[in-house]
């Protein structure tokens, strides 16, 4: 059942919260500040008592699937369990109460944590330095490309192109464009890996970098990664690693050793900081020595036990965000790393690969598996085989929701028709993987026997399939001035005077 909006529950006579009074003798803003600088209409915020506020959000929470209650095999997103100790650590007042402009002496513990985290990440991906500032993966991609850009410029080279495989995540080309590069797409070979031929064809002195993720978004390890690196480096370009798939091989191999010059990591994927329904995350970037001078400011430096923030970096690309990154997320990731240790992280990757291959095996005969195995931490299946029954990847996804599973990533990567991208992660038990496989089997059966039933799923969730097209149409009408309803927000009936 659906829930009214907080605005719709609003009551003019609800108990407003008790708040401290000023208790000083001073005029109020309204008496001092010229009327034209003041607000004329009060914002139409809801007015609810604390019990109503809490119940509202409790009921909203109960309308979500989450890894705390459901298997969440969202390919490329590494929805692994988030240890509760991470949350306990991040909520220590010694971290949450720190003002970013406190003197260095008063935040040595925070700086030490950031420094140790940098060391640990360097060890995992095999780079020389890491900046912890980027707020997410895409932000890290852009930060790294800016560094690569600055590197080339520092050598008087105006390289204007960035190569991106057609299987790449959308943030890769978007980040390249945001850095002012032209994006040139590189084709995938039939085996799902990047086509070396096409790569060679696209490489030139105009190319600043090739962005690659490995294993790629199909979950396949780029076997020829060393040749790729050589090709790229021979043209003077840099090799960029999209670390969203790092969970595949921690402790087994390192991007740095593969020849990657810059690496972003999604702490909210590989290192268990929670996704929060869409962030906050953290996207640290690691670089090899020749990119180090271009790291954003500030960096954390440690000289015989004393830690400081270094703002004096002449070649730096400057600041990529305010303060020092999503510190609270850094605390969680570091807590996870300490608890797991080198042995635990390695085991995690092994288990992730094992789970993916087991589940892939169980998919045989149910869905198409366009590429040969083994896969790494995830695999891409296809609902193409159900097309004759008029069933699409979307229908399979909705069928899973009906069966109390979150859905895999669908229609990505774009190179696979009706793609169903499954990443089970290491934190799920075999029992859960089997239950998921059984659900897929049931759905495939239903697809063949009663496709129309499947078309109407889910029906036991708060809402059924939503008409996104109608939504877009109505927004369009609003933007064209043909309607008063923004659709993108609730609209108050009437304004209250301030």
């Amino acid at each position: 059942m659906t829930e009214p909006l907080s605005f719709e529950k609003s009551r003019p006579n609800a108990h407003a919260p008790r708040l401290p009074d000023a208790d000083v003798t001073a005029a109020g803003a309204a008496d001092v500040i010229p009327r034209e600088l003041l607000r004329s209409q009060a914002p139409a915020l809801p007015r609810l008592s604390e019990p109503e506020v809490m119940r509202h959000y409790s009921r909203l929470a109960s309308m979500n699937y989450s890894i705390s209650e459901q298997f969440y095999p969202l390919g490329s997103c590494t929805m692994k369990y988030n240890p509760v100790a991470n949350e306990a650590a991040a909520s220590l007042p010694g971290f949450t109460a720190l003002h970013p402009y406190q003197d260095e002496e008063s935040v040595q513990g925070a700086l030490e944590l950031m420094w140790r985290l940098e060391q640990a990440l360097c060890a995992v991906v095999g780079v020389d330095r890491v900046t912890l500032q980027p707020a997410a993966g895409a932000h890290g991609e852009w930060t790294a490309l800016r560094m690569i850009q600055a590197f080339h410029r520092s050598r008087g080279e105006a390289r204007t192109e960035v190569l991106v495989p057609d299987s790449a995540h959308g943030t890769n080309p978007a980040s390249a464009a945001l850095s002012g590069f032209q994006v040139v797409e590189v084709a995938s070979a039939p085996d799902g890996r990047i086509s070396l031929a096409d790569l060679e064809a696209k490489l030139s002195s105009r190319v600043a970098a090739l962005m690659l993720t490995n294993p790629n978004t199909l979950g396949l390890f780029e076997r020829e990664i060393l040749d790729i690196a050589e090709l790229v480096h021979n043209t003077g370009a840099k090799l960029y690693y999209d670390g969203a798939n790092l969970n595949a091989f921690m402790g087994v191999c390192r991007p740095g050793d593969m020849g990657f010059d810059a690496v972003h990591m999604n702490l909210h994927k590989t290192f268990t900081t929670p996704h929060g329904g869409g962030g906050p995350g953290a996207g640290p970037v690691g670089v090899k020595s020749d990119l180090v001078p271009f790291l954003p400011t500030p960096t954390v430096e440690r000289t015989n036990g004393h830690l400081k923030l270094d703002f004096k970096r002449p070649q730096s690309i400057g600041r990529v965000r305010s303060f020092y990154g999503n510190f609270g997320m850094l605390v969680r990731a570091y807590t996870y790393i300490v608890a797991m240790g080198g042995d635990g992280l390695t085991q995690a990757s092994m288990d992730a690969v094992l789970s993916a291959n087991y589940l892939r095996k169980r998919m045989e005969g149910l869905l198409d598996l366009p590429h040969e195995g083994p896969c790494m931490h995830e695999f891409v299946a296809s609902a193409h085989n159900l097309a004759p029954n008029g069933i699409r990847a979307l229908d399979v996804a909705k069928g899973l929701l009906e069966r109390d599973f979150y859905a895999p990533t669908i229609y990505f990567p774009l190179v696979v028709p009706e793609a169903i991208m499954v990443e089970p992660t290491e934190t799920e038990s075999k029992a859960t993987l089997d239950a998921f496989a059984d659900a897929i089997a049931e759905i495939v059966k239903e697809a063949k026997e009663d496709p129309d039933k499947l078309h109407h799923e889910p029906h036991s969730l708060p809402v059924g399939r939503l008409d996104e097209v109608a939504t877009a149409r109505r927004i369009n009408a609003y933007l064209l001035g043909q309607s008063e309803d923004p659709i993108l927000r609730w609209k108050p009936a009437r304004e209250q005077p301030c």
Partner: protein
Amino acid sequence: MLAAIGIDSMEGLLVDIPRSLRIPRLELPNGLSEFETMAQITSLADRNRVFPDRLTFRGGGVYRRFIPAAVAAVTSKPEFYTAYTPYQPEASQGTLQAIYEFQTLIAELTALDVANASLYDGATAVAEAAMMAFVHTGRKEVLVSGYLHPEYLDVLRAFGEGRGIKIRKGSEPTAKTAAVIFQQPDFLGLLVDAAGLTKRAHDAGAIAIACVDPISLALLAPPGQYGADIAVGEGQQLGLSPSYGGPHVGFIACHKDLVRRLPGRLIGESHDAQGRRGFVLTLTAREQHIRREKATSNICTNHSLCALAASVYMTYMGAEGMRHVADVSFKRAHALAARLTALPGWELAFPEQQFLNEFPIRVPKPAVMNRKLARRGILGGLDMHRWYRELKGVFTFTCTEVNDPRAIDELVEAVSS
């Protein structure tokens, strides 16, 4: 499971990885028990000094405010914090409705048509707004008027550099100007002529971008009221702890004409076949996963959970509540300013300009003041000279509802002793 897969060891699954790349082990210590881990993390936390809320008079973009316990009670719900971006709407209505409410709250607060689901922080929000103006006007220059937060300015420069956008200081837009950016109140806490700057921008065919303090909007004219095209800002004050600078949340709202240029997620109202209302991600044609290099921005993961915290805060406080704390902060800051300027050698740096709850003041002993205050457990003002050569000896002091009158007495006594 190996057997089921039909192999006899993990090695069988790692065949694609060149031998030469295999490493023997990670150069990291082995794992620890939760108990030992927490002991280690706690010892790091204990190596930081925590100044009590009431004795914190330092702002500069991050402020101590009363945070209702309700905020953490909501954001700590695993159903919220362990969910992913709501790709499957039927199984994500909780997150989707919460963000839709956030969009409405921000639109109401800024008095603009539409707000997005959130951005990383105030700094990147300013930069994203500038990118919108750049694309919308096709002009390559962005003007920054007055005292914009210096870190926001730095980030704006870093964004601009990639795309060859010139960032200039000034408030006289020309036909080359894509946007005029101003902060209200500015980094020093002073009120600027937002309406005038907006008019000048429009007269030059440029976009007016207002960087605003969300709490101040309970009192001050919101961007929509004076016609600014885009409002951006930092939402930390809406229920988020300082947390050494993050994670906080950036917000952005705009006039309907610019909606298709907005970066990031947008949630819209929808319906199912039975006519039940639901919410969905919409206008995705702006976004990277659809438009790739032609997207309005590269942002994907944003700051949803922080936006949720802000929604809980605003819903708990209501318009009256926010207005109340804004007014209490105003009164206490002015009371503090009066007390300090009464001391020998203390004078307001810009006596002719209005401020809300943060103000720049010239202090007699800049070199030693804060060390002296720290000894009394007080986190004193912020030294503006760090960023502005012309502001030698000028510090900004902040008051909010957490700085009770006795705390103000303690501060005044400490500086005058």
